[in-house]
């Protein structure tokens, strides 16, 4: 039993995630005591009946969104880092979030739409899904023709760059209020999702998570390179398409509902690998998901600026936490290689 705990200590991340979840729910412009938060979550009545509405209608949906988005993005990042055997890959290297951004930018800025009916959150989610879906088809077509992963990585980044520059052109030619609307979307947001939207996010995450666990064998084998993986009987062509699809849906759904969230997908897998210290994806996949959910909850809690009514954009916080981690990974890798 003790041995089991030692080997499976990554499960402590569950405790961490639950703690961060409760803290996240308790803080905000209206501070709610932890005790009342817990009571409300278990169906009881808090001291102040207004707290109940705040928790159920606003904070619970936001905390769940954080966990699903953080888990999805971190998992997508892990899959890409393994597929490309590149520590600096993330879920956005395939150019999906750039595609989503372009579609949203077109919706928001390409005319007088901003004031019309179309620009609700749901329309934006639809546009983002459409944009990332289109890029996904492009990437799959390329992946089918080009078997070399390094080339695929470069092509993904090129597609992303092209989409980004189109966004810049749109920004340059559009009205300032539309620009502002788009800018706010790029900041990312964890709040304001309806329950059906959360259910959708949860469904995509569940499928992606289970698929990743089933893919643990090819993912592990990939660490030895394409040739060794094939020699071990892995059908790498099939596995590659499944990994790309899985990552696309995970990252695409988050971008659609929460905007382009930076750095979580890149930084969290490294954090998880540090904590867990294994290369086995059977453990890395759930571990990375838990770490992603925890980090996202933490970032959102910090973004709330507890005690004030001021909320920082979530992307500012994720990058603030992400950058030092990426720098650290580069420094550490250099040490290992020599």
């Amino acid at each position, binding site marked *: 039993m003790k041995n089991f705990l030692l080997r499976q200590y990554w499960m402590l991340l569950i405790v961490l995630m639950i703690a961060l979840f409760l803290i996240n729910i308790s803080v905000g412009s209206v501070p709610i005591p932890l005790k009342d938060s817990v009571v409300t979550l278990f169906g009881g009545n808090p001291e102040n009946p207004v707290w109940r509405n705040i928790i159920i209608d606003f904070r619970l949906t936001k905390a769940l969104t954080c966990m699903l988005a953080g888990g999805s993005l971190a998992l997508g990042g892990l899959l890409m880092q393994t597929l490309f055997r590149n520590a600096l890959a993330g879920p956005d290297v395939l150019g999906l979030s750039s595609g989503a951004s372009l579609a949203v930018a077109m919706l928001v800025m390409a005319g007088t739409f901003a004031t019309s009916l179309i620009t609700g959150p749901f329309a934006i989610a639809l546009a983002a899904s459409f944009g990332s879906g289109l890029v996904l088809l492009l990437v799959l077509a390329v992946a089918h023709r080009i078997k070399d992963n390094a080339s695929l990585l470069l092509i993904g980044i090129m597609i992303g760059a092209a989409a980004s520059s189109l966004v810049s052109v749109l920004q340059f030619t559009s009205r300032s209020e539309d620009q502002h609307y788009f800018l706010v979307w790029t900041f990312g947001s964890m709040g304001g999702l309806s329950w059906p939207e959360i259910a959708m996010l949860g469904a995509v995450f569940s499928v992606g998570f289970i698929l990743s666990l089933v893919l643990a*064998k090819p993912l592990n084998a990939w660490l*030895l390179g394409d*040739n060794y993986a094939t020699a071990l009987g892995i059908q790498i062509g099939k596995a590659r398409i499944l990994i790309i699809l899985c990552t696309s849906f995970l990252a695409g759904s988050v971008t659609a509902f929460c905007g382009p969230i930076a750095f979580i997908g890149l930084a969290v897998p490294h954090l998880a690998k540090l904590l867990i210290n294994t290369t086995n994806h059977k453990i890395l996949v759930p571990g990375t998901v838990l770490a992603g959910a925890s980090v996202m909850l933490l970032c959102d809690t910090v973004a709330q600026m507890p005690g004030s009514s001021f909320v920082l954009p979530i992307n500012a916080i994720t990058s603030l936490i992400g950058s030092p981690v990426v720098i650290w990974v580069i420094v550490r890798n250099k040490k290992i290689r020599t």
Partner: protein
Amino acid sequence: MKPQQNHSDTAVLLVNNLTVGYKSGSTTNVLLENLKLVLHQGELVCFMGPNGIGKSTLIRTLAGLQPPIAGSILTPSQSTNSKREEIISVVLTDRITALNMTVLELVTYGRYPYLDWNLKLNDHDEAFVEQAIKQTRIETLIEKKLYELSDGQMQMVMVARALAQDTPVVLLDEPTAHLDLNNRVEIMNLLRNLAHDSGKTILVATHELDLALQTADTIWLTGKNKEIITGIPEDLVLNGTFDEIFQFKGFDLKTGKVSHSAWRNTVIALSGDGHAYLWTKNALERNGYVLDENKGLPVSIFSSGEGIVWTFNDTTHTSLQQLLAELSR
């Protein structure tokens, strides 16, 4: 189990009119053509030839990692529903980049062809992993991370991974490259023992001429006309095939020595025997002297319990260095 050659019933791998190379776009780059080869059970085959001639390409094609341009590869002794990864395991020159893995994890990869998605090892799998670790004598390394290993240890671990796969055929692509003499000998000895004692069929692409000549049961030699010449090492040495392919410059394969020019024009009559004689001959020839049994300056070697002494011109020398200094005066 002794290697049994020229017995078609021990053939584990049959290569029929195989052509290997690369297709890129509409152009086809053929490296080796119309190969007809057999690998027998319990045989150690060394595959030799200059760089860039297609050795790695043939190994990858045999292992099913790239498609052949033409021809077929058959495994007659195996049941038809055996998968390629259950018959052939490989050690490639590809570098492992996931260095944060432990040695045990890497060896366990050998069992992947037999595991389902849940990757759960049964007792049978564990036994093969344990045996592979024992055979390669890496018991003390299993908890180490890959980045802690030396090049020689890393190669042993890669061999262990291939052994854990428990395949009748093991293909190795230059497993001894970049290793020191001791590690090279250790790996070649291990491979020979595996072939002869465990009945595995082992194909090694290597540049280690001396080791290959002393350990291989069969040599595959390639280098011209996109073909592979096969035979036992001694035949290929004596019929000049090695000389033809490698175009040795200043190396006489039949004596196994680097050829020296006798630039001193001094003939020495050396008397003595055993290792001392051989190494004295080596030292003298290396320094440009000609040796003749019957005439020339007399040098004698005497071995005693206290060591070896050389006498020349009534003076006695306790080292070859002293003798050479005296001779050159």
